[in-house]
């Protein structure tokens, strides 16, 4: 789809797209794990006015506990956004406390191993360290895996991808049983917002290819391949401008929200609203919806709204 067609298309999409999910046509790596949660009571859980840890406790409880997703003896990969060498207050990286809490839940459910990594933009050791995430992960018993080595990325096919047909994906993603995607909600210079779909760019090696070949289409295409078992959106502090890195703390708002869903498009649509934009202004969300990756029509979803 050409970018210029967007405004027209998106208007139409909102009317046409019903509950027409086209999940069956491909087999995701996590299809097996995901099927265990078919009887989920809610499509999306949204929590507000709490601390990240407590909000996650509430949200996951309302989905029946993390045990629905993480079976004993399984290995888990938690993928926060750790892209930038800045402190947690700058809200360019996922809240370390939230990452820690998720790992604790996984271990309580009997996970064998929990791995955490990101293919960072700034110097990776500095990002891991100054985001506070390395310390948080280690204190919860998780393992920080380097994301800076090309050798650790292996080629995968993306059946059905329009622009993106192959990608190099980090081996920790390929080798783990459960994939928990934990982005932070932020403004983004080119993608407009970066949430769960965009966060998957951190598990691939060659990002320049995406930028060269229609960024939004590539973001959506990649979701055909990689469907996280669970998405947790950290919207506790939100970087409202100058994203994705931010310039100062003045760019950050304390909004104290948290979203959890297995539907990567739905969670992005809801988070976009928290950000203050409309989902149909975000091209990759619209494309993802059109491709049947998820449902951006929030009124069609069963949402559990929890205010603390």
């Amino acid at each position, binding site marked *: 789809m*050409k*970018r*210029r067609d*967007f*405004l027209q298309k998106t208007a139409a999409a909102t009317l046409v797209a019903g509950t027409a999910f086209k999940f069956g046509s491909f087999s995701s790596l996590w299809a097996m794990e995901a099927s265990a949660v078919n009887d989920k009571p809610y499509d999306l859980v*949204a929590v*507000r*006015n709490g601390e990240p840890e407590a909000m996650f406790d509430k949200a996951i409880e309302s989905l029946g506990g993390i045990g629905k997703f993480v079976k004993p003896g399984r290995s888990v990969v938690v993928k926060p956004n750790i892209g930038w*060498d800045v402190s947690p207050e700058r809200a360019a990286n996922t809240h370390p406390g939230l990452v820690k809490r998720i790992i604790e839940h996984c271990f309580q459910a009997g996970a064998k*191993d929990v791995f955490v990594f990101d293919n960072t*933009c*700034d*110097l990776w*050791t*500095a990002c891991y360290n*100054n985001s506070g995430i390395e310390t948080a992960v280690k204190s919860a018993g998780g*393992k*920080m*895996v*380097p994301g*800076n*080595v090309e*050798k*650790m990325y292996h080629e995968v096919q993306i059946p059905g991808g329009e622009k993106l047909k192959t990608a190099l994906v980090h081996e920790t993603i390929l080798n783990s049983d459960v994939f928990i995607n934990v982005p932070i909600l932020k403004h*983004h*210079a*080119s*993608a*407009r917002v970066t949430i769960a779909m965009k966060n998957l760019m951190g598990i691939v090696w060659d*990002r*320049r*290819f995406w*930028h*060269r*070949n*229609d*960024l*939004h289409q590539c973001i959506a295409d990649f979701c055909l391949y990689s469907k996280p078992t669970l998405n947790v959106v950290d919207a506790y502090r939100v970087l*409202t*401008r*100058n994203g*994705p*890195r931010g*310039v*100062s703390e*003045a*760019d950050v*708002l*304390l*909004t*104290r929200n948290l979203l959890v869903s297995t539907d990567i498009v739905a969670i992005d*649509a*809801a988070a976009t*609203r*928290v950000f*203050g934009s409309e989902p149909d202004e975000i*091209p990759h969300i619209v494309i993802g919806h059109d491709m049947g990756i998820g449902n951006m029509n*929030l009124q069609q979803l069963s*949402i559990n*709204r929890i205010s603390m």
Partner: protein
Amino acid sequence: MFKPHNLKKLRVFVSIVFLLSLSFIFLDTKETFPVWFRESFLFLQLVPSVIQATTVIGWMALGILVVIILTLLFGRIYCSFICPLGILQDVITRIANLFRKKKRRFRFLKARNILRYSLLIVVVAASFSGFIIILGWLDPFSVFGRFMTHAVRPVYIYINNGISSLLFSINNYWLNPIEFRAYSWASAGAVVALMTLVVWMAAAYGRQYCNTVCPVGTFLGLLSKFSLYKIRLDQQLCNSCGLCQQVCKAGCINTKEKSVDMSRCVGCYNCLTACKSNGVLYSIGLPITSDASHNSSRRQFLGSSASLVIATAGLANTIDQPQHENPTTIPEEKNFPVSPPGSKSLDHFVSKCIACHLCVSVCPKQVLQPSLFEYGLKGFLQPRMDYHTSFCNFDCTLCGEACPTGAILPLTLEQKHVEQIGKVVFIRRNCIVRTDLTDCGACSEHCPTKAVIMVPWRKVLLIPEVKPEICIGCGACEYACPTKPFKAIYVDGNKVHQIADKPEVLEQLAAPKPEDDFPF
């Protein structure tokens, strides 16, 4: 009174400490040791400290005084205790001995005065006329630094990464891999050229590099003629058996004439241990002025000085003056290369950097890469910011802390955040947003100051807009820009570094109130 045996032991011990520490300084990727550790070994390196003293009056400059005083007291012990290349040569000689059936016996060598004084004068004259790189080519610390950076370090990284990936395969993430982004073949060539010379001389003749080529050795040799303590052969006790001469790697003992050329003695103290009849003395004494060679060497020195000063002055003028004054034909049209943050200006940097490549080794982003001719012939192998390989980390000041010559001066983090080493230039007609009509924005994404922002364009797209006045020239935008073969955004170096305007701090927005409802 010195115990001769202990002196040699002391020398071996100190030299090992220096060699290991200086090697480690070039290999340390984790900032294991504090700055003072690094500095306490670097400040005694003569050439870096001399250059630094011409820029800043810091405690590093004290190194010169210490070295000069040590030499005036004890002779050229610098060459055996402190100089990493000297110590490395001893190691090479030792290794070479392992391959010989019989241990190598050194003999007395004639002083190559014309060669060594000429080289010293060329180097000094060239340095004063801005060609410091010739000093950089021969200076032992720089030779050692390039050897570590381009020969030892890659092997170290290779082994580190091998072990780390073995550990990964058993899910152990204890050892981090070290990124290796680019290999400088030009530097490798320089290393091979110089090290071949050094290794060959060391294996065949002992310390001949130090006594014919090395400008530091030659300079300190001039001083040690006047040193308080001298090695001497006792005219009575010495029976000219030649044992001391056989262990003298400097080839400066003439047992037949019972004389020692102090200008070439490197203070290793091997002779003190070797002599069986207490014939070698290390004691206070006036210079022995009787020998004619001393006078003749002085005459040679003065003679060669005069002719060479003229020669080098001529050479300096024939090589082009400032490079890249005019736009070149390269598509990105860079007028100037980008020199590292803290290097003040291209002139400052090029006239102070001896290309020891310590900054290349410590730069965690590996954006500092040896140049070819970006700085012109004058700056061959001096490091430059290579934004096709990497970009400068916003919160990093390591190169300035490491640089031993003051070519890169230390910056505080606050200074670094506004130190403008170059300015961003945007070529709209190369930009993907315009050529492909799709969103990109990789440049703006990476920019730490938001000197590139994305502004609405053709209704649904966002295209870069640059604000060079707040740009610091870190190169993140240029590195991230995915266009090929030429970038759509790049940094043009500042000939003189400037202070960038601070990014405008916008007003804090109002947070949603707790009583608000969900927006969906």
